[in-house]
């Protein structure tokens, strides 16, 4: 997957509110608007926690969720990490747990 212009993309949690409970093998997530419930991976939960803390910019998320990749990974690894994070954000968008702000 080719991702262009990631610099400008940012997300926030859905304004209705999202509750995240961290469990030993994943997270349970409750959408306070729709009432939908999801069980997701710990990585998804980590991303949601960063968004809850106001860190929704793509590059900031990348630095928070995969801090070593940016400094020590090869270009190929960096690219794959970006793709993976973008996929996660698309999944969360599809679930309407997050929405783009930019």
């Amino acid at each position, binding site marked *: 997957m080719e991702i262009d212009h990631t610099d400008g993309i940012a997300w926030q949690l859905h304004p209705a509110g999202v*509750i995240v*409970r961290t*469990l*030993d*093998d994943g997270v*349970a997530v*409750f959408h*306070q608007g729709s*009432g939908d419930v999801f*069980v997701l991976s710990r990585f998804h939960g980590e991303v949601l926690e960063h968004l809850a803390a106001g860190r929704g910019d793509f590059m900031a998320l990348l630095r928070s969720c995969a801090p070593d990749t940016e400094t020590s990974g090869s270009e190929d690894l960096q690219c794959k990490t970006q793709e993976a994070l973008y996929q996660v954000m698309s999944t969360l968008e599809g679930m309407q747990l997050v929405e783009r702000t930019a």
Partner: protein
Amino acid sequence: MVEVGAIPARDFRALVAGAGAIIHFGRFSFRLSSPVEHLADEVHRMYRHHPVSLEGFADFHVEVRPPRNLRRWFGRQLEFHVDGSSSFFPLPHAQAFPLLEWGLNWCVHDAVKDCLILHAAVVEKDGKALLIPAPPGSGKSTLVAGLVHHGWRLLSDELAPLALDALSIEGLARPISLKNDSIDLVKRLTGEDAFSGTVRDTVKGSVALMRPPRESVLAVRRPAAPVAVIFPKFTRGARPVHRGVGQGAAFALLMESAFNFSALRRQGFEALADLVERCGCHEIGYGSLDEGMRLVEDIHAAA
């Protein structure tokens, strides 16, 4: 209050056919009225240890009777009415008692607003309760019947009302519903006396109910603290296996068993998350009742 069994069967039949009898289970009560004599007789046997009163408040006014519309001409059928209305299809006359039990399940799940109602059995020993959710056909009720026969307290076979702080589960102590091959299996263990008649050709196959022990009925108002969640799976001839289940996986499975999740919304979500955090979650597979009970005993001992 006297127990149902203290009233002679013939008098109980007359009560049910007349003003009705109010039977209490846990925090609930239902006034049963019905002209169907074999239903009154089965209730008299299966609710033998439950308290009964003749007047006063009842949560559910239940009537099981033949239809009064054109349906009465289509074979001998019965309808379940609660508080004057019926949301159920009529069933054959012979299925009166299962119809009552299934209708009462609906009443409880519809009435409870302050607990998360899980489709699960609950048994307790030494103050430690086990929650056993499972889809039909997994052997849940057979396992529960075996445990209860060996001295465990029955809180519920079908519906588990979990307090919203997830610290306790209420008891209902209603009859255990057994199906198909498990009926004879458990009868061989417990004897025939505790069983209702077997009703064949229901939507669930052959069904018979097993009376809860008197000790369980007397202790029904004492909630129990859940310490473990067990997902059982009976497969004839299979070797016994026991695996831990992650909290997230257990949460997802329990979601499928939660009846009123959408009504409770965040409260239900938090209760379920608290439950899986607090309890050990297990999956057991077994090929015989004895093996299943041994696995449950091991989990209980370690909890």
